């Protein structure tokens, strides 16, 4: 017992804080960008839609390390774009928490975007037409009619994006690195301590990740169930 208490007391909790903070910020960003992109892509002509959709979905298909490599190419201070960003605006993504957010957002975004788009395409167009004839503004129609109708799809997109952002490893390690207390996320911590043969710490963090993931999904399912009381089983 004493041993466990000592272990918990000596533990550096920063990875959990960094992971959750990153997860939340990346989810919020993916939420808005995902919805915006879903709507924008729906308005495109079929040909353009196929190309743009393919591009936006890439981060989901690529190995995260490949995505991380490209991000590094873009944001490295030794390359034109990254350098310009730093010199003009003082923005630095490599080896910073911003890098964590950027990597997690890019990787989580396609989940939000694709789920949302699928949900938007299922919305009954008559609802939107009716709303227009009632004089509702397009903005109000979007937030008051489309989003609630597409609710379950948007919700599942958000949950999946959060889960993905929380566990992001590959791209984050390439772009943000693993600086304890700054960019050291839980996934990176596990990888690091495993290399030192510290199975106790790795196991502890694995259980934490497992619990957070499981609780989030369960909570979301329960929340989603309330709407679907009348769902038929088959």
């Amino acid at each position: 017992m004493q041993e466990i208490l000592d272990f918990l007391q000596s533990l550096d909790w920063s990875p959990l804080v960094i992971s959750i903070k990153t997860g939340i910020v990346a989810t919020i960003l993916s939420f808005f960008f995902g919805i915006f992109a879903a709507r924008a892509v729906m308005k495109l002509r079929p040909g353009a839609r196929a190309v743009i959709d393919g591009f936006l979905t890439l981060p989901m298909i690529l190995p995260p390390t490949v995505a991380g490599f490209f991000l590094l190419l873009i944001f490295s201070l030794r390359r034109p774009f990254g350098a310009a960003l730093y010199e003009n605006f003082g923005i630095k993504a490599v080896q910073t928490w911003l890098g964590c957010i950027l990597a997690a957002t890019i990787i989580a975004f396609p989940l939000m975007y694709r789920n949302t788009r699928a949900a938007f395409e299922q919305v009954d167009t008559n609802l939107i037409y009716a709303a227009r004839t009632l004089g509702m503004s397009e903005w109000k129609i979007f937030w008051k009619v489309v989003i609630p109708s597409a609710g379950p799809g948007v919700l599942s997109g958000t949950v999946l994006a959060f889960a993905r952002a929380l566990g992001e490893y590959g791209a984050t390690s390439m772009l943000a690195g693993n600086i304890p207390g700054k960019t050291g996320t839980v996934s990176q911590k596990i990888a690091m301590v495993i290399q030192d043969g510290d199975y106790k710490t790795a196991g502890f963090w694995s259980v934490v990740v497992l619990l957070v993931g499981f609780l989030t999904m369960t909570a979301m399912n329960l929340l989603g169930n309330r709407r679907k009381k009348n769902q038929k089983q088959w």
Partner: protein
Amino acid sequence: MALEVDITKKLDGFFMHMQFRAEQEIFAILGASGCGKSMTLKCIAGIEKPDEGRIVLDGKVLFDSEKKINLPPQKRKVGYMFQDYALFPHMNVVQNIEAGMGKRPDRSRTESLIRQFQLEGLEKKIPGQLSGGQKQRVAMARMLAAEPELILLDEPFSALDTYLKWQLEQEMYKHLKEAGKPVIFVSHNRDEVYRLCDTVSCMNRGKMEVMEPLKEFFQNPKTRTAAILSGCKNISAAERVDAHTLRAVDWGVTLHVKEREIADDIRAVGIRAHFLATVERPGEENVFPVNESEIWEDPFEWNISFRKNAECSWLQWKIAKTDWSPEMGIPKELYLKEEDILLLTDS
């Protein structure tokens, strides 16, 4: 208060060309499904865009392809009631009604609409918990809450059971009269149209054929489509012999009309199934030989299909069970009064 429409739009397989003027009254567009009647309403409401033409409501130009005017639906003040009512499924009755009332809905107005449409006690229910009739009333209340200048009804009764439909029709009629706005009512059901409307037009493959006062439309249809839509069961191609004689080609019968002149453009002839009679009057003209026949039973009437011979088309005769029964034997001939012959043009 008047609506002027003159629009064309290419639809699947044909061109829609609608040209009409509707005054303050209930105006029906009767047509088979897929003839473009819903599309016409959608163009007026601004949900769909016509290829060319002009739509003017009370002097306000809603659409004009030449002047490049195309007001968004929000600015048209045209209420549209959808076939499935399109109520917002996640909003309760009050929220649905107030959806079109702007940023600060007037509570007292909502309450008076709820009273007017007998929705008391249902305020907090969502559409999924309402019956078809209740949904229809919410849709009406929601539409009127947005204060439209024109009301469009797209098959408003087709989602309802027939059992209580007549009551809902009566309610709807009352509400429309109270609202005092011009109404365009689109339907494929002649009974609804007969009970609700003042003026009727019929549509066939994107074209409006006739536009007449209700009684005239049903008593004296002018075109083949109008005859079919007004419920005429028997229609045959016709060949004009002279000004008072024509041949109903499909039935193998010659018909005589002494009181009227047969115009040159008459291409078809129609007979309502109820107007055929067994009563024998010697030397009668307009006789239909019944050489082959089949009987079908309906709850309250008999349907007899008959024809002259195998080369001819079947005709249908309907007669109430109180007036005739098969035990009386199928007559050898059926008669038609001259004034009951419908002379029809092709369009």
